[in-house]
């Protein structure tokens, strides 16, 4: 009886967004009287960090501090349309829509500033700290708060912008099978190192190495967290979670969290994650979607590592001790 070491890898290419009847998201942005730019969205931030990332996109495009951005999400009664938070589409689709809206708003912002400063709008720049100023001059400048006040109360203007990112439905070319269903694809590879206990059948993931080509990591800390949180879900899918452990027989299904197993803090491997950036032409600042894919490659990587460790080729998840032991028995019987 022994603990057998194995290493396996798996790679994944993953589409950003979907290709049903087209895939649009819209964004509206407007300045309040004091120069806060409110981004209105129907889109949902369910913890993945959409609000942070679109605020970054808006701040970068407007040339203003991120503190000047307020993101108002998730009201589908009153917000501009969004297809939803799924298909790894949020950062790409909504980020693009927000950049478009912020670009339009920036043009108005510079136009009003030009009137206030009595210069040509083309000669103005933003300095990233909240000022719009004449290029090359330290004196001819106006703060965004004063600018927004002037727009509202002197010029009767709204500093606002509209954005829509519309991925048209892509039809298949009958002759060749060609199509563009997804705008861009992210790529990743995961290596899993495991130990298989050939007496108990328990598989322990010792370490996990992941490399993700994400286009551009708009927020590297959150992108890394998505990679590692997703890997946890993959490990959980590979080794722990199931609602029907003897599918298609529905017996012994878990009824609650005491029976539905998930890895806890003590079951996690050491993770090493690397992000590679090859900007996508269609992406917001080059970003691709890496939402769903992060749970994918850990599963076949673990299956391959189990095979490497003990020669058992498992084809049904989760890779429970029972399945591992039955596999080992079959090998010995053969």
């Amino acid at each position: 009886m022994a603990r057998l070491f194995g290493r396996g890898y798996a790679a994944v290419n993953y589409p950003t967004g979907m290709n049903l009847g087209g895939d649009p998201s819209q964004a509206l942005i407007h300045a309040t009287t004091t120069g806060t730019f409110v981004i209105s969205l129907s889109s949902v931030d369910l913890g993945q960090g959409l609000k942070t990332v679109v605020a970054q996109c808006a701040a970068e495009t407007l040339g203003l501090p991120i503190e000047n951005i307020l993101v108002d999400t998730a009201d589908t009664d009153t917000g501009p349309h969004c297809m939803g938070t799924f298909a790894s589409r949020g950062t790409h689709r909504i980020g693009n829509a927000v950049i478009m809206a912020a670009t339009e708003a920036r043009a108005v912002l510079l136009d009003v500033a030009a009137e206030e400063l009595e210069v040509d709008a083309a000669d103005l720049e933003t300095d990233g700290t909240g000022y719009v100023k004449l290029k090359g001059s330290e004196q001819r400048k106006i703060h965004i708060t004063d600018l927004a006040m002037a727009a509202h109360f002197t010029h009767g203007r709204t500093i606002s912008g509209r954005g829509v990112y519309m991925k048209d439905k892509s039809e298949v070319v009958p002759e060749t099978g060609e199509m563009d269903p997804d705008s861009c694809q992210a790529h990743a590879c995961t290596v899993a190192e495991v130990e298989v206990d050939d007496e108990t059948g328990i598989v322990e993931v010792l370490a996990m190495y992941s490399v993700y080509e994400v286009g551009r990591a708009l927020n590297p800390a959150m992108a890394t967290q998505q990679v590692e949180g997703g890997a946890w879900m993959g490990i959980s899918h590979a080794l722990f979670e199931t609602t029907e452990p003897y599918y298609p027989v529905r017996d012994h299904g878990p009824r609650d969290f005491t029976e539905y197993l998930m890895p806890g803090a003590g079951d996690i491997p050491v993770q090493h994650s690397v992000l590679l950036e090859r900007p996508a032409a269609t992406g917001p600042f080059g970003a691709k979607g890496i939402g769903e894919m992060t749970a994918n490659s850990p599963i076949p990587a673990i299956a391959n590592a189990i095979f490497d460790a003990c020669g058992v080729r498992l084809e049904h998840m989760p890779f429970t001790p029972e399945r591992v032991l039955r596999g080992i028995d079959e090998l010995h019987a053969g």
Partner: protein
Amino acid sequence: MPSRIVTLTVNDADHELIATPGLTLLAALRDALGLTAAKRGCAQGTCGSCVVLLDERAVPACLVPVETVDGAAVRTLEGVAAGGELDEVQSAFLDGFATQCGFCTSGMIMAAEALLADNPSPSRQDVVEAISGNVCRCTGYEPIVAAVLDAARRRAGRTA
């Protein structure tokens, strides 16, 4: 069974509330006192999202009938930031990206507070055990474990 009047000291403030039979500490905190940081996840003590400090011990508030803890001192996440300043655990969670959707965060922080009060310089294994009753579905746990260890270092640095 009749209802009872129960006295609790919650985040240093005394409260009297009517405890109907079987009313949980979690329901009392959320519904009677409006303290909604502790979350109702599984309501059976297995997810940890409702963990609060009860007389300085971390407990799942969903399993505590409030009539059984008359006179107890309770601390919730709302009572952690003294004077509106985030404490070391909260700061470490914030700086270390130890929260994503946030549903487990309150319970995680309270479990960490109980650990650090008892053991100011925990090992990684101590941290893992302290949060073993808390489920997180987003982070993969690593940022949380790292944040609790970071909080211990910050607290040691502050008191040194």
